[in-house]
């Protein structure tokens, strides 16, 4: 199937000023490639600091100003330029961020989910998506600081599905949740994929990735080390990179001693 999102040879580097005025380029991602197909969950697994969030920000064209990106990002068959990204953001492409700090602390949840729209249609849809994730209409009137960790995560997912997106980028959406709550969140991703959306699930948690993803891309040193299916990974077949093999070895069930 034609991938909804394909990333080829993506590199992201930062311009940094060291001592004095010497300018140094610090590369975070170098030559990363992956593809997300509609109806599938692709998990991107990498250590903290491997540049996983930068991948999400590069796709959405919201990298910090001192970052430089190169490579090709294609969405729906055509190049995803800054102009296109600006149109697609929040409509066809949705980001699910890490936690409650991504909500404006001074604004009620309902208004944030609706992005300030107050039409009866938007209000109805807002209540609908809240209900879909088991949140009552009273949630609209809460401020972010009044949400529990699990509620905040569900509100962030509700933000993403307000506009029935075709591509969902979830950037570490589970830290701080217990296994049960994390499982529920992943269930929501699975459900979105089954409805036809492509899901890019960025995480450092290999076990979670294996449990939910159709395919797993392992990042190492800013590059794609391997892309395999969970069953391949478990079996240890098709792993070409030493890092991926070591990662598999390190799992509790694979005699990591």
């Amino acid at each position, binding site marked *: 199937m034609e991938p909804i999102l394909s990333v080829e040879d993506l590199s992201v580097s930062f311009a940094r000023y060291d001592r004095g005025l010497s300018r140094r380029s610090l590369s975070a991602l170098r030559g990363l490639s992956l593809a997300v197909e509609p109806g599938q969950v692709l998990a991107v697994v990498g250590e903290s600091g491997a540049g996983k969030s930068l991948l999400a920000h590069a796709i959405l064209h*919201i990298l910090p100003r001192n970052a430089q990106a190169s490579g090709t990002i294609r969405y729906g068959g055509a190049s995803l330029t800054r102009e296109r990204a600006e149109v697609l*953001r929040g409509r066809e492409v949705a980001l699910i961020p890490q936690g409650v700090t991504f909500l404006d602390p*001074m*604004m009620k949840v309902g208004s944030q989910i609706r992005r300030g729209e107050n039409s009866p249609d938007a209000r109805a849809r807002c209540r609908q998506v809240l209900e879909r994730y088991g949140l009552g209409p009273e949630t609209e009137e809460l401020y972010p600081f009044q949400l529990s960790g699990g509620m905040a995560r569900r509100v962030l997912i509700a933000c993403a599905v307000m506009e029935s997106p075709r591509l969902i980028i979830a950037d570490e959406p589970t830290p701080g949740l217990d296994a049960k709550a994390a499982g529920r969140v992943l269930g929501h991703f699975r459900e979105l994929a089954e409805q036809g959306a492509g899901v890019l699930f960025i995480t450092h948690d290999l076990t979670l990735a294996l449990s939910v993803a159709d395919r797993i891309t392992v990042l190492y040193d800013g590059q794609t080390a391997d892309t395999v299916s969970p069953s391949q990974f478990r079996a240890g077949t098709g792993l070409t990179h030493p890092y991926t093999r070591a990662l598999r070895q390190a799992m509790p069930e694979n005699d990591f001693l």
Partner: protein
Amino acid sequence: MSHRLQFTAKKLVRMALLLLGVSLTAFLLMNASPLDPLQTNVGQAALGSMSPEQIAKLEEYWGADTPAAERYLSWLGSALRGDLGVSLLYRRPVLEVIGQRLSTSLWLLACAWVLSGALGLGLGLLAGANRGRWPDRLVRGCCLTVSSTPAFWLGLLLLIVFAVWLKILPIGMAVPIGGGQATLLERLRHALLPGLTLSITGAANIALHTREKVVDVLDSDYILFARARGERHILRRHVLRNVALPAVTLQFASIGELIGGSVLVEQVFSYPGLGQAAVSAGLGSDMPLLLGITVVTAALVFGGSLTADLLYGAIDPRIRKGAAAQ
């Protein structure tokens, strides 16, 4: 509700302690001043021609022969009963002098307070939203320059430009000279230059602080998420909302700086306000008036910070709802 009451009670106790401390400090400083009230107010030549009885009478009037502790305690005693005494220089009740002077100064202070707040917030937003680009550098450059400029010097500069060269604004005073009852417009015209001087100095400070806050907010996760969701009007919807809190604090905290600045600025513009009265009271050893002005201005500044605290509770949902939940 009991939370609010407790809060208010704590603040009131703090205010009482503050006023006590401020009045005592002012008294001790004045007491330690090398100025001899008789020599300053009567003059060396006049003193020389007076009889010892006359001098003793004058010493009694200026309180030069009473021990310091006794003078302070007797002032404090009557102040607690609401009597701030009689000004030695103006020979009228201190409260009356302060009331009259304050009503003149209020034009100036209000003018400067509103202008500096609006200007500072606007420039701060402009600079923060354009971080690193030319509007930011321009605003920051100007603000840093103004911040390092003494207010009285800035006042002189404005006087030279607008009153001496361009002759479009009056050179000083609060009303036209010898003009009887002044109209509102005339009062505003006279308050404009000193008000502008105060505003420019105040605005620079507020703009620099606001800019920092805007930069912080723009770097936050929630702005990133708002951008990722393709939100428009991010500045109005998120930045302004989150900058409002520190802006309110700054605005009310600036009352203190404004009053401080007005002492110098009123001197430059011969503006007969509270600041000028404070200077004359200090130089003329008018202890009751000086203590009165110190206490009243300290109360004003404290009131400003208190208002900011209360508004904070009203604006910030975390405090408002948090307090209600307790």
